């Protein structure tokens, strides 16, 4: 079973299991208890799609996060990345993927109708599109921006040189995006 987990092959799974057996009391039992607890309580937030232990996650339930800003992300992992940065104080909306003609994923397969409902119901003033800088991600971003046109302010994350990045190692596309988005210094 361990070998079926992402990132683990049969050999690394065997090593992990052996390690846990050796440290049964310190590692295996607490891990088993934690897994059991998560399996019993973890669920998807009915409002935003985040994963929590209640029907409405802590972020959606918090009054402090009712700032009028809504950050749209592709996946829960992206939401967690944004939370790690601790720079955004509003609420989130997890789409659950991106539009993809190849995989027959249309707007109804994602949580886009729910997003449009939330914009009205929660008095959102700004929707921030934090989607991946890929063709699929940006196609989805454009689709959402079109759907929200005239209703609310729509912004997206900037694209360009990463912190600590050296120009020499950047691809042409990133340099082009950074050049197009240059600002007064």
């Amino acid at each position, binding site marked *: 079973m361990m070998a079926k987990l992402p990132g683990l092959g049969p050999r690394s799974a065997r090593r992990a299991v052996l390690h846990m057996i050796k440290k049964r009391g310190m590692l295996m039992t607490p891990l088993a208890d934690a897994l059991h607890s998560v399996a019993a309580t973890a669920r998807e937030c009915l409002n935003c799609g985040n994963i929590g232990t209640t029907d409405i996650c802590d972020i959606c339930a918090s009054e402090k996060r009712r700032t009028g800003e809504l950050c749209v992300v592709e996946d829960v992992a992206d939401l967690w990345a944004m939370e790690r940065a601790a720079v955004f104080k509003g609420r989130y909306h997890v789409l659950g993927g991106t539009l993809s003609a190849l995989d027959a994923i249309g707007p109804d397969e994602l949580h886009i109708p729910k997003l449009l409902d939330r914009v009205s119901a929660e008095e959102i003033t700004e929707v921030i599109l934090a989607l991946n800088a890929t063709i699929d991600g940006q196609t989805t971003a*454009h689709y959402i921006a079109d759907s929200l046109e005239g209703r609310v302010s729509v912004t997206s994350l900037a694209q360009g040189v990463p912190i600590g990045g050296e120009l020499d190692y950047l*691809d042409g*596309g990133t340099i082009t995006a950074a050049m197009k988005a240059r600002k007064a210094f």
Partner: protein
Amino acid sequence: MEWRDQGALLSVRRHGETSAIIEVFTAEHGRHAGVVRGGASRKVAPILQPGAQLDVTWRARLDEHLGAFKVEPVKSRAAAVMGDRMAMAGLNAITGLLGFSLPERENHPLLYQRTMTLLDLLGNSEAWPLAYLRWELALLDELGFGLDLTKCAVTGALDDLAYVSPRTGRAVSAEAAGEWADRMLPLPESLLGHGMGELGDVSEGLKTTGYFLANRLAAQLGGNQLPQARQRLVDRIARHSAID
């Protein structure tokens, strides 16, 4: 079996945890699929964006095998279109239509050249919607559903061509159309290679090419629907032409 070629990436699909199956429209080998080992990695995934120009080396034990690609980036086209909604819709329509319509491993050198020119125009020139319309005509022609717009199918007249017959795909003059005009498809100047390629004109032309793509080409391919990406582009061009 091994060959090396250049081409534009049409689609990417995850294959297992680390690899990807890609489709590339190549200069000498047509639409060709293959596995890219490590194609889902942080290093390679950013290269594998639809529309990207790649230098590919394909290798397989037998010709009929899926085979594996080694890819080298030549040119990324994603950055040029990402900030431009219409260009993005154009890129998706082009890659979607090629993936949908081209038979695998069949060489189409003329269409390849036109496709490369069109992809390079996206986001860099305002003339690309007209080039896109002409490209759809070329796609129909290449796949055996070409339109004959040189003269009127009824009278043989070279002037006053106003319609296209949905049955034959041939031009019809306004005079010859007579009471059948409302059953004909529009023949705007952009389809005849005239005019400045205004969006309204291009939008009309796309109705005609769309009819033949859906009712001739797609019907021949088992009645599958055209990619939604094309319809999104057509809607966007129509919306912009209404604003203009």
